[in-house]
């Protein structure tokens, strides 16, 4: 009903604006004009993005590293994670993921505080207390399931972004994938707060533990995201700039939140 009304009014107003004869003569021209107006209206939302060249001094290295990582993911990480997923039940893998996530609580807590998100920091603390005890060392997530307390992912890169530090040039890290100078640097302070990382213990002899733990972490994580990398890859015309764009857009929106 509404559509007819709008159409009726629209056709009426068009009729009023254009003299009837020219309307018949210039139909194609008019169509083009309407079309242009229509897209330019939507266009303004996207306009600022195009034309701006990304500063990418490491593009040569980044491109090679993207393909190196691709080979590692496709030939090692994904097959191992797939095999692991076949053997280990979903619920156990989710439990493992929960344990890791619970252990990384100090990173989220500190970065929430640094960004003055005190409510989130309190909720994170509550989550840690509830999940470490009732959730049995973080295997379960009763804080979310029963109390609706959500995790608030924040890292030091986001903290720097919060205070206006720009991303700097894009850098693709071996194994870890897309990053930028700001976020790559931020791995160090975050690792110092992260019990699953080798930096946490500050002892070279413990380093192998960190590597093993990280290995388990990444294989477990990938097992919960099977098929995603392949699916994303299909959307790419050129893999490296595509991955770079996804990463930078995602980080920008995380920092804005």
């Amino acid at each position, binding site marked *: 009903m509404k*559509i007819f009304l709008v159409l009726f009014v629209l056709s009426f107003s068009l009729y009023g604006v254009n003299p009837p004869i020219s309307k018949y003569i210039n139909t194609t021209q008019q169509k083009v004009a309407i079309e242009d107006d*229509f897209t330019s209206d*939507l*266009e303004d939302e*996207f306009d600022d993005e*195009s034309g701006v060249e990304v500063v990418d001094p490491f593009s040569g290295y980044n491109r090679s590293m993207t393909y190196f990582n691709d080979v590692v993911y496709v030939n090692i990480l994904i097959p191992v994670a797939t095999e692991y997923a076949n053997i280990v039940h979903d619920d156990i893998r989710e439990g493992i993921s929960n344990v890791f996530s619970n252990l990384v609580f100090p990173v989220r807590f500190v970065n929430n505080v640094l960004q003055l998100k005190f409510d989130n920091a309190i909720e994170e603390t509550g989550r840690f207390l509830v999940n470490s005890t009732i959730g049995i060392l973080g295997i379960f997530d009763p804080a979310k399931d029963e109390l609706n307390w959500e995790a608030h992912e924040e890292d030091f890169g986001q903290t720097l972004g919060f205070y206006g530090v720009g991303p700097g040039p894009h850098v693709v890290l071996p194994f870890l994938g897309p990053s930028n100078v700001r976020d790559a640097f931020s791995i160090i302070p975050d690792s110092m707060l992260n019990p699953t990382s080798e930096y946490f213990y500050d002892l070279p002899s413990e380093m192998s533990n960190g590597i093993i733990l990280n290995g388990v972490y990444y294989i477990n994580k990938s097992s919960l995201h099977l*098929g995603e990398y392949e699916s994303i890859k*299909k959307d790419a015309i050129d893999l490296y700039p*595509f991955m770079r764009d996804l990463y930078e857009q995602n980080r*920008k929106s995380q920092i804005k939140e």
Partner: protein
Amino acid sequence: MKLSKLIIKKYSIISLAFSLSFGVSSAYAIQEENIASQMQVNINKTTLLLQNEQLKQEDKKIQIFELFDPVFDYSSMSKIALGKKWRKLSNDQKEHFENAFTHKLKQSYIDKLKLYTDEKVIINQTEKVKSTRIKLHTELIGKDQTYKIIYKFHRSKKNAEWLIYDVEMIGVSIMKTYRKQFSDYLSSNSMDDLIKKLDKNNATN
């Protein structure tokens, strides 16, 4: 949270009754007040289709796009993806590009849907950005994290129905990434190369 879900449930029943009483045509055109409920209905139906083991993959795809084709504005998306270059195309190129790109968008969307067959989708609130733009906020509850997905609607000038012109997943706008990719590619290749590349890509996927 729970209240909103209840409201959506209520709405979807109302809208279902509404669309039934209005017949087929209005069931397809989305009106402002039932963006959330109509999308909920579409997503629920899609989940059921994907989980249906009796159906063939090809049939699933056809039925899913019967639901989504009237809601996605493929022609505007094609224009946005190319930006200013769109106007320089010949009519033939426009048509060819739009076909190839639409095919790619659909394939990509269905690929993503297939990954998340067992996950839960929550439709949250609509946000009116301006009189002709609405964002529908949704969440996909994954195994170890929640993904925010925003469907961006605009009101079409042709018949004032609301259509999707962009989807934003975890802060990444699909249209922005295509726009960026195409503009990069076209800086060193021709439009016909791009169309060829899309066709080839579509054939292998």
